[in-house]
C-alpha cells in the first residue's frame, strides 16, 4: 500500500527539503538496520552500510515510482547492497570458527543438533548459539545467505523474498533450499570434526 506521507516526503526531498529526507530515513532506518544486521552480521561497519543504503536511495529517488510503496523499494536496495558487500569483502566475516571458545565448539554444536528448551535458555547462551549460527551463515554464498535470512529469519513470504532479491519466486525457493542444505553440510562437517577430535 502506498503511504501518502512517504510520497509527500519524497516529493519534498526532490524539491530540496533536507528535513523531509531525514524524516524519510527516520521512518525506515530501523527496518534497514535490521536487514543489514541479519544479512551482514553484527559489525561496526553496519552504521556505514545503513548510511550507504540511504545515500543510494537518495541518488535514485528521482526514478522512484510514487505509486509504489517505499518500504519494499528501500529494502530491495538494502538487500542488493548487502549481497554486494558480501561478494566484495569475502573477508567480512563476523565470526570465525577458530575464534569460538572450546566451550562453544564442543557444547553448543552438540546442543544445536537436538531439540532445545529455549524458555530455560539464558540470554548469554542464546548469544553463543547465535555466534555458531553466524559462523555457519558466513560460509554461505551471498545470494543463498540473503534468501535464507529473508525467508527464515525475517519470515517473509517467497513472493516477497523474490521481489527483494529481484528474482523469480522459483529462484528464491531454490536459493533458500540450497542455503538449508549448505548449512546442514557445514554443521555436519564441524560436528564430525569435533567428534574426531574427541576420539583422539
Amino acid at each position: 500500500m502506498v503511504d501518502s506521507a512517504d510520497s509527500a516526503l519524497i516529493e519534498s526531498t526532490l524539491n530540496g527539503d533536507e528535513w523531509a529526507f531525514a524524516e524519510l530515513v527516520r521512518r525506515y532506518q530501523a527496518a534497514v538496520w535490521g536487514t543489514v544486521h541479519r544479512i551482514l552480521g553484527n559489525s561496526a561497519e553496519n552504521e556505514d552500510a545503513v548510511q550507504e543504503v540511504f545515500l543510494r536511495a537518495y541518488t535514485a529517488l528521482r526514478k522512484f515510482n510514487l505509486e509504489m510503496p517505499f518500504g519494499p523499494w528501500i529494502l530491495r536496495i538494502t538487500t542488493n547492497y548487502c549481497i554486494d558487500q558480501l561478494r566484495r569483502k569475502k573477508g567480512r566475516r563476523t565470526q570465525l570458527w577458530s575464534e569460538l571458545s572450546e566451550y562453544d565448539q564442543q557444547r553448543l554444536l552438540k546442543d544445536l543438533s537436538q531439540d532445545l528448551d529455549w524458555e530455560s535458555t539464558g540470554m548469554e547462551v542464546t548469544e553463543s548459539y547465535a555466534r555458531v549460527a553466524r559462523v555457519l551463515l558466513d560460509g554461505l554464498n551471498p545470494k543463498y545467505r540473503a534468501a535464507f535470512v529473508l525467508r527464515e529469519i525475517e519470515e517473509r513470504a517467497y513472493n516477497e523474498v523474490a521481489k527483494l532479491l529481484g528474482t523469480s519466486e522459483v529462484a528464491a525457493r531454490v536459493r533458500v533450499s540450497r542455503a538449508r542444505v549448505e548449512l546442514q553440510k557445514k554443521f555436519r562437517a564441524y560436528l564430525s570434526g569435533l567428534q574426531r577430535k574427541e576420539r583422539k
Partner: protein
Amino acid sequence: MRTCDLFDKYRDGEASVAERNEYEGHLAACEACRTRFSMLDNLVHALRAEEIRPLDRADRIAREAFRRAHSWDYEVISWLRPGPAMTALVLALVLFASLWMVTGDQQVSAYSEYETLMNEADTLNIGTRLQQAGSDNEIMVWLEEEGTSSD
C-alpha cells in the same frame, strides 16, 4: 520422491495433509532429517533472538546526502552507478559507431568514386567515340562539343 525430499515443503508449511503425516512419521525414524530440522530451528531461533539496536542517524544521513548531491564528482558517479554495464554498453556502441563511420566512409567513397568514373565513361562513351573518330581533328571537334555541352 523420497520422503526426505519433502523437507522444504514441510518446513515451509506447504505440504498437504497426507504429505505432512507421511513426513512426520518419517521424522520419527530418520535421524538425519530430525537433526537437520532441529539444527535449523535452533539457528533460526538464536538469530531471531539477537538484539538489534538501530542508531538514529537520520539527520546525519540527510545532511550527507544533500552535501554529496552538490558536489560535481558525485553527480558523475551517480550517473554511472545505476548501470555500469549500461554505461559500458553505450560507450562500446559509440566506439563501434565511430569506427564504422571512419572505415565505412572510406569504403563508400572508394566505391562511389569508381561508380562516378564508370558513369562518366558511359555518358561520354569515350571508348566507342575514340574508335569511331577517323583523325585527331575529329577528336578535337568532339572534345570541343563535349566541352560546350557540359558548360
